[in-house]
């Protein structure tokens, strides 16, 4: 299948809004996991998160629009605008029929939904905003971005738990490879720092309860891991066929060259401990990219920070990469800002592209005593390293496995 160019990056994350700020913080290994301040979350078992407090400063969208949409759509709009600016795209000059949008989301826009459901039970049906119908559902950001920019090509929202956005990127690539569109805006967004969404995440049972020391709470692949930490944000990229990107002299930052996805089909929450299906997804991505396992220079780990997930992920990597697993640098920058659930894969891809661009791999924060051992984890501080080809892994509840190969142009 054709390789597809990434020509623009848009990032809204707890570690920063915009790729410069995000990268400056990520490469410095600064934690942005804090106690939740948006509402009183103190009685939740886990009340820490990666939060975004200054979105409005980066937003040019009207009050009239913002009152109709949830925070996750707002984040997607800001990230899309940034991605297109970064790509040098003026959407007004594009044929709208040849522009698509593929986004991933896991849980929907609960801040809006919760407020309106409260009004429903207090005031009755007349108290509910008519925008409720279009504000909360997982495909709402796709719709809002499409309307805002007049996008009319093939578009889709993927809902596949934490694997949603990497899957959206994979599908966007296959769609572009059919040569029926000129460009696709792709990635994901998530806004789980709300009372109900936080409650649901807590009942999942895998969040860290290290509320006293938030900055050290998310520690994937560490012996003293205590679960993951949620975060909010959006990661969106502009994707184009290489020929078109070259023709318009775009800055081709990276190429998406392979994608694979499988399901464990094992349990509704947990993955299979053997990592076999994740290994198959990685092999599918490598085969699709027409490269062998020893040509991968860097692995961006899913890193849930839960023993069963970390163990099975390492097992899958060892199955695919064999002795090389101990050599290839592997990292998980989301340990600094939280797991952005449906947006996590896209944010991991953006961090990987920035690693390629800067020849620098950010570390896994809080990794002191690796467990399981056997991977070349990047610990402590960012490591100078030339990354030519990278593998990005993203996994969802119940064993949804997603793997994407990205390479330097």
């Amino acid at each position: 299948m054709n390789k597809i160019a990434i020509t623009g990056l848009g990032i809204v994350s707890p570690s920063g809004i915009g790729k410069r700020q995000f990268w400056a913080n990520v490469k410095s290994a600064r934690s942005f996991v804090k106690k939740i301040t948006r509402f009183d979350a103190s009685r939740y078992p886990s009340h820490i998160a990666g939060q975004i407090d200054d979105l409005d400063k980066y937003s040019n969208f009207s009050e009239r629009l913002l009152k109709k949409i949830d925070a996750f759509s707002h984040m997607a709009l800001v990230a899309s605008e940034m991605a297109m600016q970064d790509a040098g795209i003026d959407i007004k000059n594009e044929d709208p029929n040849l522009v698509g949008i593929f986004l991933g989301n896991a849980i929907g826009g609960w801040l809006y939904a919760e407020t309106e459901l409260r009004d429903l039970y207090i005031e009755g049906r007349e108290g509910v905003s008519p925008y409720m119908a279009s504000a909360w559902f997982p495909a709402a950001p796709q719709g809002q971005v499409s309307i805002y920019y007049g996008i009319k090509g093939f578009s889709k929202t993927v809902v596949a738990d934490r694997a949603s956005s990497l899957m959206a990127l994979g599908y966007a690539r296959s769609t572009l490879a059919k040569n029926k569109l000129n460009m696709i805006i792709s990635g994901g967004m998530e806004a789980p720092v709300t009372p109900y969404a936080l409650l649901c995440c807590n009942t999942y049972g895998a969040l860290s309860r290290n509320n006293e020391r938030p900055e050290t709470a998310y520690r994937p692949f560490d012996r003293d891991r205590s679960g993951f930490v949620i975060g909010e944000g959006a990661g969106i990229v502009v994707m184009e066929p290489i020929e078109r990107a070259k023709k318009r002299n775009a800055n081709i930052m990276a190429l998406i060259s392979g994608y694979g996805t499988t399901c464990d089909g094992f349990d509704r929450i947990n993955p299979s401990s053997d990592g076999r299906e994740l290994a198959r997804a990685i092999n599918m991505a490598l085969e699709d990219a027409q490269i062998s396992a020893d040509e991968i220079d860097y692995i961006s780990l899913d890193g849930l920070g839960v023993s069963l997930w970390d163990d099975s992920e390492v097992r899958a990597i060892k199955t695919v990469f064999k002795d090389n697993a101990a050599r290839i640098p592997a990292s998980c920058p989301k340990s600094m800002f939280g797991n952005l659930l449906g947006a996590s894969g896209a944010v991991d891809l953006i961090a990987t592209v920035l690693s390629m661009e800067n020849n620098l791999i950010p570390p896994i924060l809080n990794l002191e005593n690796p467990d399981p051992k056997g991977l070349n984890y990047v610990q402590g501080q960012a490591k100078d390293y030339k990354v030519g080809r990278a593998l990005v892994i993203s996994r969802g509840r119940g064993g949804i496995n997603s793997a994407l190969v990205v390479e330097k142009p």
Partner: protein
Amino acid sequence: METKAKIKEVIVNLLRIKPEELKDGMSLQDSIGVDSTEMVEAVIALEKAFGVKLSAKEITKSLTLDEISSIVDSKIGK
């Protein structure tokens, strides 16, 4: 306050737009591009403001401020 001025105030506040954006003689769709959901919201807000029951069907037609004002006046018996 005159009915038309009050309707204008309700819609301007509701949509968080500048008063000058809402033009006389033009329909709400043509002057400020209201969509169907905004129109539903406007009907609810006008019902609250004037204490009358309005039919969404009659308001959601392409009406100007003057025409909406006449409908509201007829409901409140002006």
